[in-house]
């Protein structure tokens, strides 16, 4: 997660401390000891299952015995994952990208207002952003399904006014993207808010002092200074959104299924779907990793403009 490490180091204006002097030899094991519990945890609950999943993704089915597999090095699972489920992959990336974009558009002004304009309302706004976490993500999505349902207040009003072309809100891609946007919005708001809040106001004033008007100061000073937050926020939104299946499941229809839905159904509903589901999971992971890598390499560095 180099992106998150980047968040920690960027932003500050002060001189960085020189690398701390060498620890005394006798204490050099201490950092490793501190890392140990976390490393063990990750090993048992992340590395081992991942390896297990990888072996599953290469298994083959016993001919004639649906649901039984043998160990193999069978890359055709990956081929199937990519060919049969290409539309779902595309949708996942598209929906997640759209949700990230909309979340950014909503979150940046909100975070900006919280950081610079809210005054004593700041904490209230912060709580309002965090409050949804007090109830389950699935329950909230179910609630949205009811709010947006055909007989619900929104859809029926719009229908009465003849403003809803298809007649439905739920079971459309728009509802899925809206759900994703809604559900991951706090993950976009909080890092942007943190980076704006930490930004030195004097530095922003310096922009004005040096002949940049309000908009230019925003474009050349405020926005670049908040880039670490923007990058963290987009990653925290895009990555879980691309793997999400709850929104597509509860708010979408068959033609809005995402990779998450396919993996879920291959694992739990399709007999003999295990290897393909595992291959799908790995493909998704590799795809996201590659995109994040390119993204962070491109924008994670200083200059955006």
């Amino acid at each position, binding site marked *: 997660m180099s992106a998150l490490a980047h968040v920690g180091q*960027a*932003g*500050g*204006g*002060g*001189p*960085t401390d020189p690398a701390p002097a060498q620890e005394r030899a006798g204490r050099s094991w201490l950092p490793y000891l501190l890392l140990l519990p976390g490393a063990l945890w990750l090993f048992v609950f992340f590395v081992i299952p991942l390896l297990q999943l990888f072996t599953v993704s290469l298994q083959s089915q016993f001919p004639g015995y649906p649901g039984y597999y043998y160990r193999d090095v069978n890359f055709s699972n990956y081929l199937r994952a990519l060919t049969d489920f290409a539309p779902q992959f595309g949708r996942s990336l598209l929906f997640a990208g759209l949700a990230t974009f909309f979340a950014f558009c909503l979150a940046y002004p909100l975070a900006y207002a919280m950081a610079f304009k809210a005054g004593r309302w700041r904490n209230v706004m912060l709580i309002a952003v965090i409050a949804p976490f007090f109830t389950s993500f699935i329950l909230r999505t179910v609630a949205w399904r009811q709010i947006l349902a055909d007989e619900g207040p929104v859809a029926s009003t719009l229908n009465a006014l003849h403003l809803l072309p298809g007649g439905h809100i739920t079971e459309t891609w728009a509802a899925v993207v809206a759900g994703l946007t809604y559900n991951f919005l706090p993950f976009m708001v909080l890092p942007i808010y943190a980076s704006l809040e930490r930004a*030195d106001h*004097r*530095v922003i*004033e*310096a*922009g*004005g*002092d*040096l*002949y*940049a*008007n309000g908009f*230019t100061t925003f474009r*050349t*000073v405020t926005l*670049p*200074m908040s*880039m670490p937050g923007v990058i963290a926020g987009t990653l925290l939104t895009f990555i879980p959104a691309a793997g999400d299946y709850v929104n597509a499941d509860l708010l979408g229809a068959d033609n809005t299924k995402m990779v998450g839905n396919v993996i879920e159904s291959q694992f739990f509903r399709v007999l003999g779907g295990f290897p393909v589901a595992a291959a799908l999971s790995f493909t998704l992971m590799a795809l996201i990793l590659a995109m994040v890598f390119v993204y962070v390499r491109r924008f994670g560095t*200083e*200059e955006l403009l």
Partner: protein
Amino acid sequence: MARSSGFREAKGDLRLESVTKSFGDFTAVDDLDLVVPRGSFFALLGPSGCGKTTTLRMVAGLEQPSAGNIFIGETDLTGSRPYERPVNTVFQSYALFPHLTIRDNVAFGPKRRGDRNAMTLADETLQLVQVDHLASRKPAQLSGGQQQRVALARALVNRPEVLLLDEPLGALDLKLRRQLQVELKRIQTEVGLTFIHVTHDQEEAMTMADTVAVMNHGRIEQMGRPADMYDLPLTSFVANFVGRSNLGVGQVVDRDGDNLVAEVQGTKVKVPLARANAKDGTVMFGVRPEKVRVLRSAPEGGGDDVKGTVLDVSFTGVATEYLVRLPSGTVWSCYEQNLDVDPIDLRPGDDVWISWDPAHAFTVAADEAEARAAEEATA
């Protein structure tokens, strides 16, 4: 980006006319009148919270006055935005752009004004402040002193009509501070801009500025050439804020030719009328410590003198400071230059006479609270 639309070319003296700034009920700057001649080095000196930064921010346009007007030459800048003013600030905290290289930091202003030679100008200015070798680094990779120079370059590169420096040396250690003071002065002489330098270090103000203004509670207490201000403070606050003074409250009792006669704690003292800023009733009498002589025996001839007891002697190399307790109980400090081959060898407990030439004495309106406040602020 296009040239900032509203930029105002203004040339001439900086003038503040009855400028007031209130935050709620609190008046941070109170009816301030000020003229800073073009091309001069002006120091604004005052204790913490007296309104120095607020004054600068109003000149820069980062804050708007609650009342009054700000002019450069004949142009009224009141109400205009910071980016419209030919004024640049060196912020107390440097406020460099953390995401830009040093060169881009310095080129920021010229670029906003659409200067095609922004980069060349930036390099030249970095050379002037002697940090051109760091041009491609980021601010976080610089030391405090280097950042300070960059902050100066970033403002200087624009050749503003007025350059505001808000305690730019405050965070530096003494040696670097002295070095940068000299350089700041050199640069100011070289480029000939109006510098307004805010500080609460009186020595810094005295050594660098052509004109010093002492500010207290949002008002200017006294303004003038450093030497004049030191020689003749006009208020008890200035008497103790710009250097120290031996002060005593007394009553004016008589006139004697060109002198005023006052009785201070049982002793009659003389003060030239020209140096008496308070001439009637209760006044505060003062003499600078280095103007007071310490003697083993009663002095002969002119001058005022008092008998006292040595309380403490501290040898500082160039001079020796004696603390002498007077009969009234007040303690005066006296600096004696260590000029004599055989210094007078005094010990605590010795009886001495202290004497001074009345030509060095002064009176100001009696205000012990302000005198003490000034002493504490500079302690």
